[in-house]
Protein backbone atom coordinates (compact mmCIF):
# COMPACT_ATOMS: atom_id res chain seq x y z
CA UNK A 1 0.00 0.00 0.00
CA UNK A 2 1.11 3.51 -0.69
CA UNK A 3 2.75 4.78 2.52
CA UNK A 4 1.04 8.16 2.07
CA UNK A 5 -2.37 6.52 2.16
CA UNK A 6 -1.55 4.56 5.30
CA UNK A 7 -0.26 7.63 7.12
CA UNK A 8 -3.37 9.52 6.15
CA UNK A 9 -5.51 6.67 7.42
CA UNK A 10 -3.57 6.54 10.68
CA UNK A 11 -3.80 10.28 11.15
CA UNK A 12 -7.56 10.20 10.64
CA UNK A 13 -7.93 7.37 13.17
CA UNK A 14 -5.90 9.35 15.70
CA UNK A 15 -7.96 12.46 15.06
CA UNK A 16 -11.16 10.48 15.53
CA UNK A 17 -9.91 9.13 18.85
CA UNK A 18 -8.95 12.62 20.02
CA UNK A 19 -12.34 13.99 19.00
CA UNK A 20 -14.19 11.25 20.87
CA UNK A 21 -12.06 11.56 23.97
CA UNK A 22 -12.81 15.27 24.16
CA UNK A 23 -16.27 14.43 25.49
CA UNK A 24 -15.52 13.82 29.14
CA UNK A 25 -18.32 11.34 29.90
CA UNK A 26 -16.53 8.65 27.96
CA UNK A 27 -13.63 8.57 30.39
CA UNK A 28 -14.52 6.41 33.37
CA UNK A 29 -11.90 5.11 35.77
CA UNK A 30 -14.23 2.68 37.46
CA UNK A 31 -17.99 2.11 37.77
CA UNK A 32 -17.37 2.41 41.54
CA UNK A 33 -15.55 5.74 41.25
CA UNK A 34 -16.49 8.58 43.54
CA UNK A 35 -15.77 11.52 41.27
CA UNK A 36 -18.63 14.00 41.38
CA UNK A 37 -18.73 16.84 38.87
CA UNK A 38 -18.40 20.22 40.56
CA UNK A 39 -21.77 21.40 39.19
CA UNK A 40 -23.45 18.44 40.93
CA UNK A 41 -21.78 18.68 44.35
CA UNK A 42 -23.93 19.01 47.51
CA UNK A 43 -27.12 19.52 45.52
CA UNK A 44 -29.44 19.32 48.54
CA UNK A 45 -27.73 22.41 49.91
CA UNK A 46 -27.71 24.32 46.62
CA UNK A 47 -31.32 23.33 45.93
CA UNK A 48 -32.44 24.40 49.41
CA UNK A 49 -30.66 27.72 48.86
CA UNK A 50 -32.87 28.19 45.80
CA UNK A 51 -35.87 28.07 48.16
CA UNK A 52 -34.55 31.03 50.10
CA UNK A 53 -35.69 33.59 51.15
CA UNK A 54 -39.25 32.25 50.74
CA UNK A 55 -38.38 29.30 53.01
CA UNK A 56 -37.92 31.66 55.97
CA UNK A 57 -41.26 33.37 55.55
CA UNK A 58 -44.09 32.70 58.05
CA UNK A 59 -46.53 29.92 57.37
CA UNK A 60 -48.94 30.02 54.51
CA UNK A 61 -50.45 26.97 52.79
CA UNK A 62 -48.23 25.36 50.14
CA UNK A 63 -48.02 22.22 48.03
CA UNK A 64 -45.05 20.02 47.29
CA UNK A 65 -44.55 16.99 45.03
CA UNK A 66 -43.34 13.61 46.31
CA UNK A 67 -41.48 11.15 44.11
CA UNK A 68 -39.46 8.03 44.93
CA UNK A 69 -37.63 4.95 43.65
CA UNK A 70 -36.70 6.23 40.23
CA UNK A 71 -33.92 3.57 40.01
CA UNK A 72 -33.17 3.08 36.32
CA UNK A 73 -36.75 3.72 35.15
CA UNK A 74 -35.28 6.65 33.23
CA UNK A 75 -37.99 6.94 30.60
CA UNK A 76 -40.75 6.88 33.22
CA UNK A 77 -38.79 9.33 35.33
CA UNK A 78 -38.48 11.70 32.36
CA UNK A 79 -42.25 11.52 31.85
CA UNK A 80 -42.73 12.30 35.52
CA UNK A 81 -40.39 15.28 35.20
CA UNK A 82 -42.36 16.49 32.18
CA UNK A 83 -45.60 16.23 34.13
CA UNK A 84 -44.15 18.05 37.15
CA UNK A 85 -42.96 20.85 34.86
CA UNK A 86 -46.45 21.14 33.40
CA UNK A 87 -47.81 22.12 36.85
CA UNK A 88 -47.18 25.45 38.47
CA UNK A 89 -48.67 24.94 41.92
CA UNK A 90 -45.74 23.10 43.53
CA UNK A 91 -43.06 24.80 45.62
CA UNK A 92 -40.51 22.00 45.52
CA UNK A 93 -40.07 18.22 45.17
CA UNK A 94 -38.87 15.62 47.65
CA UNK A 95 -37.39 12.41 46.23
CA UNK A 96 -37.65 9.64 48.81
CA UNK A 97 -34.58 7.69 47.80
CA UNK A 98 -33.38 4.86 45.55
CA UNK A 99 -32.12 7.09 42.81
CA UNK A 100 -29.95 4.26 41.42
CA UNK A 101 -30.16 0.52 40.89
CA UNK A 102 -26.62 -0.56 41.77
CA UNK A 103 -25.10 2.77 42.86
CA UNK A 104 -22.81 2.78 39.83
CA UNK A 105 -21.18 6.14 39.15
CA UNK A 106 -23.08 6.86 35.95
CA UNK A 107 -26.43 6.00 37.54
CA UNK A 108 -25.87 8.87 39.97
CA UNK A 109 -24.97 11.14 37.03
CA UNK A 110 -28.00 10.08 35.03
CA UNK A 111 -30.28 10.75 38.00
CA UNK A 112 -28.78 14.20 38.50
CA UNK A 113 -29.10 14.93 34.79
CA UNK A 114 -32.82 14.13 34.68
CA UNK A 115 -33.61 15.56 38.13
CA UNK A 116 -32.08 18.89 37.19
CA UNK A 117 -34.57 19.19 34.34
CA UNK A 118 -37.26 19.80 36.98
CA UNK A 119 -38.02 23.51 37.07
CA UNK A 120 -38.39 23.62 40.87
CA UNK A 121 -35.79 22.59 43.47
CA UNK A 122 -35.54 18.90 44.40
CA UNK A 123 -34.36 17.52 47.74
CA UNK A 124 -33.10 13.95 47.53
CA UNK A 125 -33.11 11.35 50.30
CA UNK A 126 -30.84 8.32 50.34
CA UNK A 127 -32.25 4.87 49.55
CA UNK A 128 -30.97 1.38 50.22
CA UNK A 129 -29.84 0.85 46.61
CA UNK A 130 -27.84 4.07 46.77
CA UNK A 131 -25.63 2.57 49.52
CA UNK A 132 -24.19 -0.28 47.43
CA UNK A 133 -20.57 -0.04 46.29
CA UNK A 134 -19.29 3.42 47.13
CA UNK A 135 -22.81 4.80 46.79
CA UNK A 136 -23.08 6.20 50.32
CA UNK A 137 -19.95 8.30 49.81
CA UNK A 138 -21.04 9.35 46.32
CA UNK A 139 -24.44 10.38 47.75
CA UNK A 140 -22.85 12.54 50.44
CA UNK A 141 -20.59 14.18 47.84
CA UNK A 142 -23.44 14.75 45.43
CA UNK A 143 -26.21 15.76 47.82
CA UNK A 144 -24.73 16.39 51.28
CA UNK A 145 -25.30 14.72 54.66
CA UNK A 146 -27.71 11.78 54.51
CA UNK A 147 -29.46 12.85 57.76
CA UNK A 148 -30.67 16.42 57.50
CA UNK A 149 -33.54 18.74 58.26
CA UNK A 150 -34.66 22.11 56.97
CA UNK A 151 -37.50 24.51 57.46
CA UNK A 152 -39.85 25.77 54.83
CA UNK A 153 -42.50 28.34 55.73
CA UNK A 154 -42.60 27.29 59.39
CA UNK A 155 -42.72 23.57 58.63
CA UNK A 156 -39.80 21.41 59.69
CA UNK A 157 -38.81 18.72 57.18
CA UNK A 158 -36.77 15.92 58.77
CA UNK A 159 -34.97 13.69 56.27
CA UNK A 160 -33.91 10.49 57.98
CA UNK A 161 -31.37 8.03 56.58
CA UNK A 162 -32.71 4.73 57.95
CA UNK A 163 -30.74 2.29 55.78
CA UNK A 164 -29.37 -0.65 57.77
CA UNK A 165 -28.15 -3.65 55.77
CA UNK A 166 -26.36 -1.80 52.96
CA UNK A 167 -24.62 0.48 55.45
CA UNK A 168 -23.69 -2.52 57.59
CA UNK A 169 -25.05 -0.93 60.75
CA UNK A 170 -27.19 -2.48 63.49
CA UNK A 171 -29.78 0.28 63.72
CA UNK A 172 -30.47 3.62 62.07
CA UNK A 173 -29.31 6.69 63.98
CA UNK A 174 -32.44 7.02 66.14
CA UNK A 175 -30.65 9.41 68.51
CA UNK A 176 -30.27 11.91 65.71
CA UNK A 177 -33.86 11.30 64.56
CA UNK A 178 -35.24 11.80 68.08
CA UNK A 179 -33.43 15.12 68.43
CA UNK A 180 -34.33 16.23 64.90
CA UNK A 181 -38.04 15.59 65.47
CA UNK A 182 -38.18 18.03 68.38
CA UNK A 183 -40.38 20.99 67.51
CA UNK A 184 -37.83 23.53 68.68
CA UNK A 185 -39.12 26.64 66.99
CA UNK A 186 -42.91 26.48 67.23
CA UNK A 187 -43.12 24.98 63.79
CA UNK A 188 -46.61 24.48 62.49
CA UNK A 189 -45.76 20.92 61.52
CA UNK A 190 -42.82 18.56 61.78
CA UNK A 191 -42.77 16.17 58.82
CA UNK A 192 -40.55 13.08 58.89
CA UNK A 193 -39.36 11.48 55.62
CA UNK A 194 -37.39 8.24 55.35
CA UNK A 195 -36.79 5.78 52.53
CA UNK A 196 -37.66 2.58 54.40
CA UNK A 197 -41.03 2.21 56.10
CA UNK A 198 -40.72 0.76 59.62
CA UNK A 199 -42.39 -2.51 58.62
CA UNK A 200 -39.64 -3.29 56.10
CA UNK A 201 -37.66 -6.47 56.72
CA UNK A 202 -34.47 -4.43 57.26
CA UNK A 203 -36.02 -3.15 60.49
CA UNK A 204 -35.81 -5.40 63.52
CA UNK A 205 -38.92 -5.66 65.69
CA UNK A 206 -37.28 -3.26 68.13
CA UNK A 207 -36.50 -0.70 65.41
CA UNK A 208 -40.03 -0.97 64.06
CA UNK A 209 -41.51 -0.36 67.51
CA UNK A 210 -39.10 2.46 68.26
CA UNK A 211 -39.86 4.28 65.02
CA UNK A 212 -43.55 4.39 65.80
CA UNK A 213 -42.87 5.29 69.43
CA UNK A 214 -40.88 8.33 68.26
CA UNK A 215 -43.86 9.40 66.16
CA UNK A 216 -46.09 9.14 69.22
CA UNK A 217 -43.56 10.81 71.50
CA UNK A 218 -43.35 13.86 69.26
CA UNK A 219 -47.10 13.90 68.55
CA UNK A 220 -46.65 13.36 64.83
CA UNK A 221 -49.41 11.83 62.80
CA UNK A 222 -47.78 11.52 59.38
CA UNK A 223 -44.61 9.72 58.27
CA UNK A 224 -43.63 9.58 54.58
CA UNK A 225 -41.69 6.78 52.89
CA UNK A 226 -40.51 5.30 49.60
CA UNK A 227 -39.20 1.79 48.92
CA UNK A 228 -42.52 0.02 48.23
CA UNK A 229 -42.82 1.26 44.61
CA UNK A 230 -46.59 1.61 45.08
CA UNK A 231 -48.88 4.12 46.72
CA UNK A 232 -50.28 3.30 50.12
CA UNK A 233 -51.69 5.24 53.03
CA UNK A 234 -52.28 3.30 56.20
CA UNK A 235 -52.26 3.18 59.97
CA UNK A 236 -50.50 -0.10 60.82
CA UNK A 237 -49.85 0.97 64.40
CA UNK A 238 -52.07 3.20 66.50
CA UNK A 239 -53.10 6.45 64.88
CA UNK A 240 -49.93 7.37 63.01
CA UNK A 241 -50.47 7.62 59.24
CA UNK A 242 -47.84 6.14 56.95
CA UNK A 243 -47.75 7.42 53.39
CA UNK A 244 -45.81 5.42 50.79
CA UNK A 245 -44.81 7.17 47.59
CA UNK A 246 -44.98 5.24 44.29
CA UNK A 247 -42.19 4.73 41.73
CA UNK A 248 -42.38 6.63 38.42
CA UNK A 249 -43.54 3.60 36.41
CA UNK A 250 -46.93 3.79 38.15
CA UNK A 251 -47.41 7.19 36.44
CA UNK A 252 -48.65 8.64 39.70
CA UNK A 253 -47.52 11.78 41.46
CA UNK A 254 -48.21 12.46 45.11
CA UNK A 255 -49.03 16.03 45.99
CA UNK A 256 -48.70 16.98 49.62
CA UNK A 257 -51.07 19.81 50.39
CA UNK A 258 -49.95 21.56 53.57
CA UNK A 259 -52.87 23.60 54.83
CA UNK A 260 -53.27 25.67 57.98
CA UNK A 261 -55.37 23.13 59.86
CA UNK A 262 -54.45 19.86 58.17
CA UNK A 263 -52.10 18.12 55.75
CA UNK A 264 -53.80 16.41 52.83
CA UNK A 265 -52.39 14.43 50.00
CA UNK A 266 -53.58 13.70 46.50
CA UNK A 267 -52.63 10.92 44.13
CA UNK A 268 -52.55 12.30 40.61
CA UNK A 269 -52.63 9.93 37.65
CA UNK A 270 -50.94 11.52 34.67
Amino acid at each position, binding site marked *: MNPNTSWRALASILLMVLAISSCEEIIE*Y*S*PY*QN*IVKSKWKKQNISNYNKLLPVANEPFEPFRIGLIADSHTYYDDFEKQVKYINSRDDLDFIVHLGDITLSANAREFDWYSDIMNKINIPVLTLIGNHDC*LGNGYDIYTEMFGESNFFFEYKDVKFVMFDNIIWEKKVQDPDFNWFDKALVNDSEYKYVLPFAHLPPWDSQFSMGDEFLYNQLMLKHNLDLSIHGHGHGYSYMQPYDDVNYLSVPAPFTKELIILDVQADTIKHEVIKY
Partner: protein
Amino acid sequence: MTEVIKYCFRCIVLIGIILVSVFDVKAQADAGDSIRTDMPKVLQKAYRERTVVIKKDTITYRHRWFIPGQYKLQYAGSIGFMSVGFGYAITPTYQPALFFGYLSENFGGSKNSVVSISLKNSFYFTKQPLFRYFKPYGGLSITWGNTNNTFKRLPDYYPKEYYFQNKIHFYPFLGGELKFAINNRYFDGVGVYTEFSAMDAYLLEAIRTKYVKPHMALSMAVGVTFYLR
Protein backbone atom coordinates in the same frame (compact mmCIF):
# COMPACT_ATOMS: atom_id res chain seq x y z
CA MET B 1 -7.89 -0.64 54.84
CA THR B 2 -7.06 1.91 52.14
CA GLU B 3 -3.48 1.87 53.38
CA VAL B 4 -3.31 -1.89 52.95
CA ILE B 5 -4.69 -1.66 49.43
CA LYS B 6 -2.25 1.14 48.60
CA TYR B 7 0.58 -0.96 49.96
CA CYS B 8 -0.54 -3.99 47.95
CA PHE B 9 -0.73 -1.87 44.83
CA ARG B 10 2.78 -0.54 45.36
CA CYS B 11 3.98 -4.12 45.79
CA ILE B 12 2.25 -5.16 42.58
CA VAL B 13 3.81 -2.26 40.67
CA LEU B 14 7.22 -3.06 42.12
CA ILE B 15 6.91 -6.74 41.27
CA GLY B 16 5.75 -5.72 37.80
CA ILE B 17 8.81 -3.55 37.29
CA ILE B 18 11.12 -6.28 38.55
CA LEU B 19 9.45 -8.85 36.30
CA VAL B 20 9.70 -6.58 33.29
CA SER B 21 13.39 -5.99 33.91
CA VAL B 22 13.99 -9.70 34.41
CA PHE B 23 12.20 -10.49 31.16
CA ASP B 24 14.27 -7.90 29.41
CA VAL B 25 17.32 -9.92 30.22
CA LYS B 26 15.56 -13.04 29.05
CA ALA B 27 14.62 -11.39 25.78
CA GLN B 28 18.20 -10.50 25.23
CA ALA B 29 19.17 -14.07 25.90
CA ASP B 30 16.66 -15.29 23.36
CA ALA B 31 18.00 -12.92 20.77
CA GLY B 32 21.41 -14.43 21.16
CA ASP B 33 19.80 -17.87 21.11
CA SER B 34 21.79 -18.99 24.10
CA ILE B 35 21.37 -18.56 27.81
CA ARG B 36 23.31 -15.62 29.05
CA THR B 37 25.28 -16.13 32.16
CA ASP B 38 24.31 -12.75 33.60
CA MET B 39 20.72 -13.95 33.99
CA PRO B 40 19.46 -14.89 37.43
CA LYS B 41 20.15 -18.54 38.26
CA VAL B 42 16.47 -19.39 38.53
CA LEU B 43 15.70 -18.11 35.08
CA GLN B 44 18.78 -19.69 33.59
CA LYS B 45 17.42 -22.94 34.89
CA ALA B 46 13.91 -22.20 33.67
CA TYR B 47 15.06 -21.34 30.16
CA ARG B 48 17.53 -24.19 29.82
CA GLU B 49 16.83 -26.31 26.81
CA ARG B 50 15.28 -29.61 27.74
CA THR B 51 14.87 -32.61 25.55
CA VAL B 52 12.31 -35.29 25.55
CA VAL B 53 12.40 -38.42 23.40
CA ILE B 54 9.10 -39.57 22.00
CA LYS B 55 9.47 -42.79 20.08
CA LYS B 56 12.34 -41.95 17.74
CA ASP B 57 11.98 -38.19 17.80
CA THR B 58 13.94 -35.99 20.12
CA ILE B 59 12.15 -32.79 20.95
CA THR B 60 13.98 -29.82 22.35
CA TYR B 61 11.96 -27.22 24.20
CA ARG B 62 12.25 -24.35 26.60
CA HIS B 63 9.98 -23.42 29.44
CA ARG B 64 8.81 -20.05 28.37
CA TRP B 65 5.10 -20.32 27.82
CA PHE B 66 4.35 -18.80 31.18
CA ILE B 67 6.23 -15.61 30.49
CA PRO B 68 3.95 -12.91 29.13
CA GLY B 69 4.99 -11.68 25.73
CA GLN B 70 3.14 -8.37 26.04
CA TYR B 71 3.42 -5.64 28.64
CA LYS B 72 0.69 -3.03 28.72
CA LEU B 73 0.10 0.26 30.43
CA GLN B 74 -3.44 1.60 30.18
CA TYR B 75 -5.23 4.81 31.07
CA ALA B 76 -8.94 4.68 32.11
CA GLY B 77 -11.23 2.05 30.57
CA SER B 78 -13.20 1.43 33.82
CA ILE B 79 -10.40 -0.61 35.38
CA GLY B 80 -8.61 2.14 37.27
CA PHE B 81 -6.96 5.46 36.60
CA MET B 82 -3.99 3.49 35.32
CA SER B 83 -3.51 -0.23 34.96
CA VAL B 84 -0.72 -2.58 34.02
CA GLY B 85 -1.39 -5.64 31.91
CA PHE B 86 0.44 -8.81 31.03
CA GLY B 87 -0.60 -10.43 27.79
CA TYR B 88 -0.09 -13.67 25.92
CA ALA B 89 -0.33 -14.37 22.23
CA ILE B 90 -2.02 -17.75 22.59
CA THR B 91 -2.76 -17.71 18.87
CA PRO B 92 -2.34 -14.89 16.34
CA THR B 93 -6.06 -14.21 16.88
CA TYR B 94 -6.65 -14.82 20.58
CA GLN B 95 -4.47 -12.67 22.80
CA PRO B 96 -5.72 -12.40 26.38
CA ALA B 97 -4.18 -10.11 28.99
CA LEU B 98 -4.50 -9.80 32.73
CA PHE B 99 -4.74 -6.23 34.04
CA PHE B 100 -4.27 -4.77 37.49
CA GLY B 101 -5.68 -1.30 37.89
CA TYR B 102 -5.81 1.24 40.68
CA LEU B 103 -7.79 4.35 41.44
CA SER B 104 -7.67 6.56 44.52
CA GLU B 105 -7.98 10.16 45.64
CA ASN B 106 -4.36 10.95 44.75
CA PHE B 107 -4.35 8.66 41.75
CA GLY B 108 -7.30 9.61 39.60
CA GLY B 109 -9.25 11.81 42.01
CA SER B 110 -11.85 9.37 43.36
CA LYS B 111 -12.68 9.84 47.06
CA ASN B 112 -12.87 6.05 47.36
CA SER B 113 -10.09 3.83 46.09
CA VAL B 114 -10.78 0.89 43.82
CA VAL B 115 -8.55 -2.04 42.94
CA SER B 116 -9.57 -3.74 39.70
CA ILE B 117 -8.40 -6.99 38.20
CA SER B 118 -9.49 -7.60 34.67
CA LEU B 119 -9.09 -10.47 32.25
CA LYS B 120 -9.27 -8.95 28.81
CA ASN B 121 -9.99 -11.53 26.13
CA SER B 122 -8.97 -9.88 22.89
CA PHE B 123 -9.62 -11.38 19.47
CA TYR B 124 -7.86 -9.78 16.53
CA PHE B 125 -10.03 -9.54 13.44
CA THR B 126 -7.25 -9.66 10.87
CA LYS B 127 -4.03 -11.64 10.72
CA GLN B 128 -2.26 -8.90 8.76
CA PRO B 129 -2.54 -5.30 9.89
CA LEU B 130 -4.70 -2.98 7.82
CA PHE B 131 -3.00 0.12 6.38
CA ARG B 132 0.29 -1.50 7.38
CA TYR B 133 -0.09 -0.76 11.11
CA PHE B 134 -3.70 -0.96 12.19
CA LYS B 135 -4.98 -4.06 13.96
CA PRO B 136 -8.66 -3.99 14.92
CA TYR B 137 -9.81 -6.26 17.70
CA GLY B 138 -12.72 -6.95 20.00
CA GLY B 139 -13.71 -9.23 22.82
CA LEU B 140 -14.99 -9.53 26.32
CA SER B 141 -13.42 -8.41 29.59
CA ILE B 142 -14.24 -9.92 32.93
CA THR B 143 -13.51 -7.40 35.65
CA TRP B 144 -13.31 -7.94 39.37
CA GLY B 145 -13.81 -4.70 41.26
CA ASN B 146 -12.70 -4.43 44.84
CA THR B 147 -13.87 -1.48 46.92
CA ASN B 148 -16.42 -0.80 49.69
CA ASN B 149 -19.61 -2.83 49.71
CA THR B 150 -19.03 -4.97 46.66
CA PHE B 151 -19.91 -8.60 47.00
CA LYS B 152 -20.04 -11.77 44.97
CA ARG B 153 -22.40 -13.50 47.37
CA LEU B 154 -24.85 -11.51 49.47
CA PRO B 155 -24.27 -11.38 53.22
CA ASP B 156 -26.59 -13.72 55.15
CA TYR B 157 -29.01 -11.13 56.44
CA TYR B 158 -30.41 -10.33 52.98
CA PRO B 159 -33.39 -12.24 51.64
CA LYS B 160 -32.51 -14.50 48.70
CA GLU B 161 -31.73 -12.67 45.46
CA TYR B 162 -32.28 -9.26 47.03
CA TYR B 163 -29.50 -7.83 44.87
CA PHE B 164 -27.56 -9.09 41.93
CA GLN B 165 -23.84 -9.47 42.71
CA ASN B 166 -21.87 -6.28 42.05
CA LYS B 167 -18.27 -7.42 42.19
CA ILE B 168 -17.80 -9.01 38.78
CA HIS B 169 -18.81 -7.22 35.62
CA PHE B 170 -18.57 -8.12 31.96
CA TYR B 171 -17.48 -5.59 29.39
CA PRO B 172 -17.72 -6.29 25.67
CA PHE B 173 -15.25 -4.09 23.83
CA LEU B 174 -13.99 -3.03 20.43
CA GLY B 175 -10.63 -1.47 19.82
CA GLY B 176 -7.77 -0.91 17.49
CA GLU B 177 -4.03 -0.90 17.82
CA LEU B 178 -1.34 0.78 15.80
CA LYS B 179 1.62 -1.53 15.97
CA PHE B 180 5.08 -0.45 14.92
CA ALA B 181 8.20 -2.54 14.67
CA ILE B 182 11.03 -1.22 16.79
CA ASN B 183 14.63 -2.14 16.92
CA ASN B 184 15.20 -2.59 20.60
CA ARG B 185 17.34 -5.11 22.44
CA TYR B 186 14.35 -6.35 24.39
CA PHE B 187 11.26 -5.45 22.44
CA ASP B 188 10.55 -5.87 18.77
CA GLY B 189 7.28 -3.99 18.69
CA VAL B 190 5.35 -1.24 20.35
CA GLY B 191 1.64 -0.68 19.97
CA VAL B 192 -0.62 2.23 20.83
CA TYR B 193 -4.21 1.19 21.31
CA THR B 194 -7.55 2.65 22.10
CA GLU B 195 -10.72 0.78 22.85
CA PHE B 196 -14.33 1.32 23.81
CA SER B 197 -15.98 -0.95 26.31
CA ALA B 198 -19.46 -1.05 27.79
CA MET B 199 -20.19 -2.39 31.25
CA ASP B 200 -22.97 -4.97 31.36
CA ALA B 201 -25.16 -2.84 33.66
CA TYR B 202 -24.81 0.28 31.48
CA LEU B 203 -25.31 -1.72 28.32
CA LEU B 204 -28.53 -3.12 29.72
CA GLU B 205 -29.84 0.40 30.39
CA ALA B 206 -28.79 1.47 26.89
CA ILE B 207 -30.89 -1.35 25.49
CA ARG B 208 -33.76 -1.03 27.97
CA THR B 209 -34.27 2.72 28.07
CA LYS B 210 -34.52 5.48 25.52
CA TYR B 211 -32.84 7.94 27.86
CA VAL B 212 -29.52 6.08 27.95
CA LYS B 213 -28.14 6.36 24.43
CA PRO B 214 -25.62 3.71 23.33
CA HIS B 215 -22.69 6.12 23.56
CA MET B 216 -23.58 6.84 27.22
CA ALA B 217 -22.64 3.26 28.10
CA LEU B 218 -19.18 3.51 26.57
CA SER B 219 -15.91 3.88 28.39
CA MET B 220 -12.73 4.71 26.53
CA ALA B 221 -9.26 3.40 27.26
CA VAL B 222 -5.92 4.28 25.72
CA GLY B 223 -2.74 2.36 26.27
CA VAL B 224 0.60 1.16 25.04
CA THR B 225 1.82 -2.38 24.53
CA PHE B 226 5.42 -3.50 24.43
CA TYR B 227 6.03 -6.79 22.65
CA LEU B 228 8.90 -8.93 23.86
CA ARG B 229 11.35 -10.16 21.27
